[in-house]
């Protein structure tokens, strides 16, 4: 997995609340058996019209946001289905960090498995960052995971909270499965105990 340390880039404003996973990647693109190549379909139904042409008004189609690496979004981002295709599509598009007041639980966890950093901040902070994102491509925001700070193009800084384990994995680009495999003795002995205590399971 790609490491995440520090990122300075263009942030795209998406002030809509409840941006769901069906919006991020509609179901017709879930029929893939690969993890890659979904970036062109990210936000498909908002991004393209019925004939497949780009909708000029959609934020990621605007020239100043085409290379956005950060999204600043409304509350409850990523609600809906568990599809990891949502973070796959965002990552494949080039997004590395998403800022909102809140994220849906499964989406939030899925981000970390794909080198994406979801940042939850209070409404006032998101409002400021949204304004900054609206300035377009000249305004570059900085996300510093090590110090847990987001800085606007004007230098206004907001610190954010993050689970220490998730931070560690993201900064080192670690594979969870490998880490868990190291605990195989603990899993073996749990299974042995459970077979005694709850043999019917």
């Amino acid at each position: 997995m790609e490491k995440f340390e520090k990122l300075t880039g263009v942030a795209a404003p998406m002030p809509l609340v409840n941006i769901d996973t069906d919006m991020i990647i509609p179901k017709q693109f879930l029929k893939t058996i690969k993890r890659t190549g979904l970036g062109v379909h990210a936000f498909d139904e908002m991004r393209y019209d019925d004939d497949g042409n780009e909708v000029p008004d959609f934020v990621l189609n605007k020239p100043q946001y085409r290379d956005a690496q950060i999204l600043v979004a409304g509350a409850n981002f990523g609600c809906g289905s568990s599809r990891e295709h949502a973070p796959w599509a965002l990552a494949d598009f080039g997004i590395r960090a998403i800022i909102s007041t809140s994220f849906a639980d499964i989406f939030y966890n899925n981000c970390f498995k794909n080198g994406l950093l979801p940042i939850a901040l209070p409404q006032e902070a998101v409002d400021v960052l949204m304004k900054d994102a609206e300035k377009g491509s000249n305004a570059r925001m900085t996300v510093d995971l090590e110090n847990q700070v987001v800085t606007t193009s004007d230098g206004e800084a907001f610190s954010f909270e993050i689970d220490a384990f998730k931070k560690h994995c993201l900064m080192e680009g670690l594979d969870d499965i490998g880490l868990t495999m190291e605990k195989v003795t603990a899993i073996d002995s749990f299974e042995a105990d459970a077979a005694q205590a709850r043999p019917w399971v």
Partner: protein
Amino acid sequence: MSGKTLYDKIWDAHVVHADDDGTSLLYIDRHLVHEVTSPQAFEGLRLANRQVRAPQRTIAVPDHNVPTTLGRENPDQMPEDSRIQVEALDKNARDFGVNYYPVSDIRQGIVHIVGPENGWTLPGMTVVCGDSHTATHGAFGALAHGIGTSEVEHVLATQTLIQSKSKNMKVEITGSLAPGVTAKDVVLTIIGHTGTAGGTGYVIEYCGDAIRELSMEGRMTICNMAIEGGARAGLIAPDEKTFDYVKGRTHAPKGAQWEAALAWWKTLHSDEDAYWDKVVTIRGEDIAPTVTWGTSPEDALPITAKVPAAEDFSGGKVEAAKRALTYMDLTPGTPLDEIEIDTVFIGSCTNGRIEDLRAAAEVLKGRKVKDGIRAMIVPGSGLVRAQAEEEGLADIFTEAGFEWRLAGCSMCLAMNPDQLAPGERCAATSNRNFEGRQGRGGRTHLMSPAMAAAAAVTGRLTDVRELMTENEPA
């Protein structure tokens, strides 16, 4: 120190290892797998040369993509990309030796219906699936939640999941429900009340007399939509109804093991002095038959209400409501029961069980689907379908003018050919009314099976109680 909640008890029984910061490795008792979110996980195993650690705890079934029309064994019925996914599941299930119900097996169906039906889901278990509606299994007092594909791979390889604990939330429905009010109305009302993010960070336990009165099917409907309220999982403490439902099912314990299991299951309830981080109480009597008007499950209102205006909301919801009204093509102030529909979909893991079909049949008996309305019933599993045929429900549906389909997810998410055309409006018993969910440009109103059946008869969103009065003997 305060007592434990049901969630605490199940959690504690499954911790393999806990770090100082609370990050825990949790053992997983049942892992359900379907064709859409698993191919990349199995591919990951192959690439790393890993095995499925506990194939006997893993159950695979294709449901999302499969056609629901007769003759579907013929692979030509599926578009190529769907066929590739279904075939990939078939190969993965056989290569890795997990339990498997292929399309041709009568036990095939929606993964969340298959699990409980065959006794895979039991009280006190941890259950996961690469699907957000895994919360359904919480109706048995099992800790059940959706996971992403990377986590599917993690569970396949290690039979564990890295988790940090959620907070405890209690949702209490007091009293009893009025006639015509079902589990679906209860859960839509809860989400209307708490919002789709109201449960974020929590595991919800549903309790109160109105919940106790519900059948297992109704309880599954409630827990199914816990995720729509933002919660990681929904739980209902097991009781005699749970035990009765489980007893005798294929994979349920038998004999001495049954007795041992029962003894433990009876301890699975929240202690009187348990600590709750959040409590919501709703009076059962205050719940009416409910429908959604917008594009989020929180856009739920009693059928007797009117379409709201964007200005009725505050904050970010104003823009969202504006967008929803445009998308749904609705004018504020219109009575909800004047909204005309052209499609009816009864099915899904929310409402595709036998009791749901019985409720629909009760409304449809001796009635006809209104001219011009496309109406379909998709049973949640082959076993539900067989039972509905045996009980004569299927005849009621076909005589009324419904299509009677084979089991699958179908128009709940429209990955198979069952889709809405742009602008079509559907009365649906599924769980999500998101933009484009049932087909690009399609408009979805969520409701109970009885309400959806009533809408099929009248051609508009309808208060099912109107038809119930007509039904009363003279």
